[in-house]
Structure formats: structure tokens, C-alpha cells
């Protein structure tokens, strides 16, 4: 799978940027997936995407811009903002959590538009192409480097997140979803646990945002708009909220469907996307990765009996 993606640009060169953008989004979606483990949905994670993108843009504009420092600055900024906002929002759950994140991101969005002397308003900021280890590159070379860079970063992030989720901390994060009382009674603070996940998710979104900024060459307030936050959640579910790979598979499929639907069914692309989504949810509620798993089960035989949460549960078999 990874290999397939890695060689794609050689076979179909124009897909390279599309894939880079998909990776950028996939990273942000990974952040969403981390929070979904705790049963929390954020409708405002575009905030971190945008914070990082704008910081990366400023760094690229004012300090000559080296790719690595640009990305690092973005991620660091997102993590710091994530920590500050996180301390406040981890007290809330469910729709309150979702909407507070949305509120914060929309305030940031409004600020980006208002302070247009600094931020370029809704025209946004151009991001000059950063140098790579001091070298100034042509667009073509730069994009190739960026693509493979994004691929490697995504793999690293996916691996790291996977380990995190399997670790005690990650398991505690998942425990928040089902029983915070018990978590407290194990001597663990649900809020700090959620905060750790929140900062991680902000950093991942930040990485995606910074990558997007250098890949697109422009940052606009739209980076912080709620529709984008919604999109991240959307992709997370599309790919399968339970798995790290789902983030990237989802992002690839989403970008693909959207781009080609916009090209070949330009007046009904939303409908096409909506229908694809419905089909996936109805027939494979655990997302594309879940569908794949099921297919493999059917071909190779089930690995182990499936757990709760599957569609076969009795009506209303609530806990």
C-alpha cells in the first residue's frame, strides 16, 4: 500500500501534489482520530491547521525560510496554542467540547480576516517556496522532495500515533470514552489524559497545516474555517475512526473523489461525495479500513469474533 503510493508520482506525475495535499490532510485527520479515541469530536481543529500554516508562512516570509524550520515552527506554534486552548476545553465533553473548539477556531478565523494588514485578510498570505537544506529549488524538484518528505512524515506520525494509542496513556485516553469515573478511581486525571491527547492532536493538525501551506504556496483564513474542521472529521470517519491508517486512506479517497467529482461532475460533485459517503457508512460503518478488514475476513476467514459496536447488535442494546 505504502509502496503503491510511493511510486504513484513516477507513474502519474500530476497526482504528486494531490497526494501531498492528501498527506497534509491525513496528518490533520490523524489528530482528529486521536481525539475520537476519547469519544470527543472537535469541530474546530482547523484552528491548529491554520495557526501552524500562518506561522509557517510568516517564518517562510521573514526568515528566508528553510523547509525544516518552517515546518517545525508551525508544529510548535500549534502545540503551544493546543496546550493553552486545551487546558480550557478538556473540561467539556461531547457537543460542548465540539462547539467550544468551533468557537475558538471561528474567533481565530474572524481575527485572520479582521487583521488583514497583518494576515492579508481573506486574500491570505503568499508563502515563498522554502529552501531545502539551503538549496533553492525549482517547483518540480521541490514538489518531489515535498511529496517524499510528506510520505515519510506521515509514516512516522502514523507509527508514533499508533504506538501512543497502544501505550498506557493511549489506553487511558480511550477509557475516557467509556468511563471517566473509573478512570478517576484508578488515580488518573481524565482531564490531563485528554489534554495530552489534545496537544498531540493539535501538533498533528499543525504538521498538516504547515505542510499544506508550503505545498499550496498560500495560506488563507479558509484554513481556519469550520467547514475545514468538519472535513477533517468527515475524512476520519470515512477512513475508519478506529485506525491510524484510516486517516490517510480516508484523505486519499476523499481528495480523489472530490477532485475528480469536481472535474467530471462539476455541478453535482457534492451530491456524488455525499452518496459515496452514505454508501460507505451504511455498508461499512467502520470506514474504508473496516470494509477492507471485512473483505479480508471473508476471504481468509475471520481472525476473531468481532466486538461490540458492529452493526449486528440488537436494537438499542445500549450499555
Amino acid at each position, binding site marked *: 500500500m505504502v509502496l503503491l503510493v510511493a511510486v504513484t508520482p513516477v507513474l502519474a506525475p500530476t497526482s504528486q501534489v494531490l497526494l501531498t495535499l492528501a498527506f497534509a490532510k491525513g496528518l490533520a485527520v490523524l489528530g482528529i482520530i486521536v481525539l475520537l479515541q476519547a469519544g470527543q469530536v472537535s469541530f474546530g481543529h482547523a484552528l491548529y491547521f491554520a495557526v501552524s500554516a500562518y506561522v509557517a508562512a510568516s517564518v517562510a516570509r521573514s526568515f528566508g525560510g528553510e523547509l525544516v524550520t518552517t515546518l517545525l515552527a508551525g508544529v510548535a506554534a500549534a502545540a503551544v496554542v493546543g496546550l493553552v486552548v486545551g487546558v480550557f476545553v478538556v473540561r467539556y465533553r461531547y457537543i460542548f467540547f465540539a462547539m467550544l473548539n468551533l468557537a475558538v477556531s471561528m474567533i481565530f478565523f474572524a481575527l485572520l480576516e479582521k487583521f488583514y494588514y497583518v494576515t492579508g485578510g481573506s486574500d491570505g498570505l503568499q508563502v515563498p517556496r522554502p529552501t531545502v537544506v539551503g538549496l533553492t529549488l525549482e517547483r518540480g524538484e521541490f514538489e518531489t522532495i515535498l511529496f517524499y518528505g510528506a510520505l515519510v512524515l506521515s509514516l512516522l506520525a502514523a507509527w508514533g500515533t499508533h504506538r501512543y494509542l497502544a501505550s498506557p496513556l493511549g489506553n487511558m485516553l480511550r477509557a475516557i470514552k467509556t468511563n471517566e469515573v473509573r478512570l478517576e478511581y484508578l488515580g488518573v486525571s481524565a482531564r490531563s489524559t485528554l489534554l495530552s491527547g489534545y496537544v498531540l492532536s493539535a501538533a498533528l493538525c499543525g504538521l498538516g497545516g504547515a505542510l499544506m501551506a508550503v505545498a499550496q*504556496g498560500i495560506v488563507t483564513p479558509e484554513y481556519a474555517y469550520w467547514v475545514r474542521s468538519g472535513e477533517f472529521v468527515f475524512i476520519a470517519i470515512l477512513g475508519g475512526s478506529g485506525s491510524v491508517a484510516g486517516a490517510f486512506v480516508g484523505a486519499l479517497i476523499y481528495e480523489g473523489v472530490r477532485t475528480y467529482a469536481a472535474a467530471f461532475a462539476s455541478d453535482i460533485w457534492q451530491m456524488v461525495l455525499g452518496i459515496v459517503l452514505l454508501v460507505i457508512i451504511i455498508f461499512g460503518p467502520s470506514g474504508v479500513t473496516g470494509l477492507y478488514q471485512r473483505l479480508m475476513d471473508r476471504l481468509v476467514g475471520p481472525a476473531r469474533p468481532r466486538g461490540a459496536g458492529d452493526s449486528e447488535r440488537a436494537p438499542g442494546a445500549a450499555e
Partner: protein
Amino acid sequence: ADKPDELKIGITTFLSGPASVFGEPAKAAADMIIEQINADGGIDGVPIAASYVDEGAGGEALVSEYRRLVEDVDVDLMLASISSGNCNQLAPLAEDLKVLNLMWDCGTQRIFEENDYRYVFRTQANATPEMLATVLYLLKTKPDFSTIAVVNQDYAWGRDSWDIFQTALKAMKPDAKVVAEFFPKFGAPDFSTEISRLQALRPDVILSTSWGGDLDTFVRQAAQRGLTNTSTLVLPLAESSLQRLGSALPPGHIVGGRGDHYFLHPERVGDPAFDDFMKAFHDKTGAYPIYPVFHMSQALAAVKAVYAKAIEANGGEWPDREQVVDAMDGLSFQGLGNEVTIRDDHQGLEDQLLGTTAKSDEYGFAILKDIMLFDAEDITTPVGEESIEWLKTLGPDFVASVEPKTYAD
């Protein structure tokens, strides 16, 4: 170069979201014009084939699709785009991809003031001449007003256009007083509060560069509550709303068309090509053309003209793409409006038309009277200068120095 089977053009336009009020008519116009060109034998025998991209699908989809069209479909040129934000994003991309890009509808004046491009051109005016002409029209028709308020959409266009307008106004009429500045959010469904406030303040003039549903809502609510009786509205983009507003827009308010774009264009009416198109468009879509239709016609006229010029320069042979780009410099072409010329900085020189609303029984919606047609040369920022700085250098005498053509009827 070898003559291709077809001339492939990529066109970005809004097919979804609020800006589709511009995008859809423009697409309809493009279809009609291209059909006509192909029926007439295409461009030197080569038919045009257009692919459309929806700008409403968002930045990433747009960029990806733009690249796909350029790199995979191998289009000969791109017409992009409506949104200024998208222009900002696509211009450097076009430059890197070395593809001829005609900016056919976006208004930001900054593009050519802040950057030099080889492949990017604009086949219409920009925000500066549009706003400057509006200020001039206002000062020429209503010189004695003293207070003004603004109600613009809260995004780049609303902010920038007010910046330009205000700078020009201050330069030419320093005593005009701005009594209120409102920037309701884009797509705001209700302006009641703004209107109450304006009724209390009673400014002589209210500027709004809004468009689409926002403008319709604002004008209607203002009319319903009698604001249009006490203040003069100045609406530089309202040509595109006249037909929808019907009788809601009362007589006596100033309307512009982002260029010399008006289906009753005083200099073009009577030209068979113009009249035929107006009728055909109305037959097809049920509405008269609005300014994006004019802009589209200009971009396609530029395509036709530039190929003709390049072929001639190439000794009658089909030009390669770089030759086409070379031919863009100084190109003149005429779409549905007056002739447009591309300047050295790739900016198009396009005349500006404004008028005052009058009741029309024939059409059932307001038409324009006291039309003024401003010559592009007089009101476009000179090459190499920065708009705001240039506007600041204008003085009150500038008003009299510009002499538009006027049409009294």
C-alpha cells in the same frame, strides 16, 4: 507548430455556493460563445474545447484540478478565476507551470502591482478603476453631499474596495464625513440593525460594494423600511442585481457594472452582434446578460485575438505556446463591451460605466439613466504605481479633469 485537433481551454468558475450567481451565467455565456466560434470554423480551423472547474469546491480541489488540466489534459490555456483569493493562488502556479492564464473576472488590484508575471494576464479592469469611476460619478452627479456610510461584506473585496473608495474620496472631497462603517458577515441574512442605525444617522450617501443575495437583501430591506427615501445608495456592483431586484430598487440610486457592462450599453446597442447575443442569451437563460457574461466574452475574445495575432506573427503557421504568450502584450480585443487593451503590466484597460436608476415599464425592473462612460486610460493606476499611493496624489481638481462620455436619456 502543428495544428492541434482542438484548442483546449480550462475555465474555472463558481458552480456552487453564493458566487454561482456570477459563475453560472458566465458558464452559460462561455458555452454560447464557444459554440458560435466553433460554428464559425473555430480558431483558424481549430475548434475550442472547454473544461470547467468549480471554484466552489475549495482551494485544494481547485489547485489539484488546475494542475490536472495543465499537466494531464494538457490544455493550451486557462481562464481563471472569479475569486480574488483563487487568482492570488493560481497566478504563481500558472507561472511555474508555464501556462497562459487569463484572469477573466477577479478584481484584486494587487496582483500586477506587487508581482511581475510572464504568463498571467487580466482581460478586464480591477478594483481601482471600478471604485475610482464610482467616486467620480458620485462627485459629478451629487457634489454637495456631506456624509457617507458604508455597508460592505466582511471579506477581502468588501474591505479592499472600501479602502480604495475611501482613499479616492478623501483625496477629491476631503470634507466628506464617514459616519458609519458596517461590515456584516458574508451571507448575512438580515441587515435590520444596520438599517435602524442608518435611519438614525441619516447619511446622504450609503455605499455598498456587496453583490448577489447580500446586496439584494440589503437593498430590499432598506427600501422596505424607507431608507432609500432618505439616503442615496451607491452600488458599484448592482448591475448584476437589477433584474432580480425588480421594482424594489427605486429610482435615483447609483449603480455600476464593474466595467462597461450593461445590456443596454449606449455605444453597443444597435451593433447586430451585441443585440443578437443579448437576445439569444435572454432566450436561453431567461435573463439579460450581467457583467460576468461580459467578462467571459472579453476573455474569449482575447483568446481569439491572441491566436490571430500569433498566427500572423508566425507567418500563418500555428504558433507554439510561448509565441501565444508573446502575442498577449499590447493585445486589443473586443467582447460585448468596448475594446480592451492589455497594458505592459498585463493589466487590461477597460472602460467603466455607471448610471442612475430609473423606473422602466418596459422591463419591469430599474434601468439606468444619466449613464457615464469613463475612459479606462483616465482612471486606471499608471503602470508601475501602487493604487492606494496613486489615489492619494489625486486632488479635488481631478474630478473636473476626467470627462466621461455622458448619455442623458
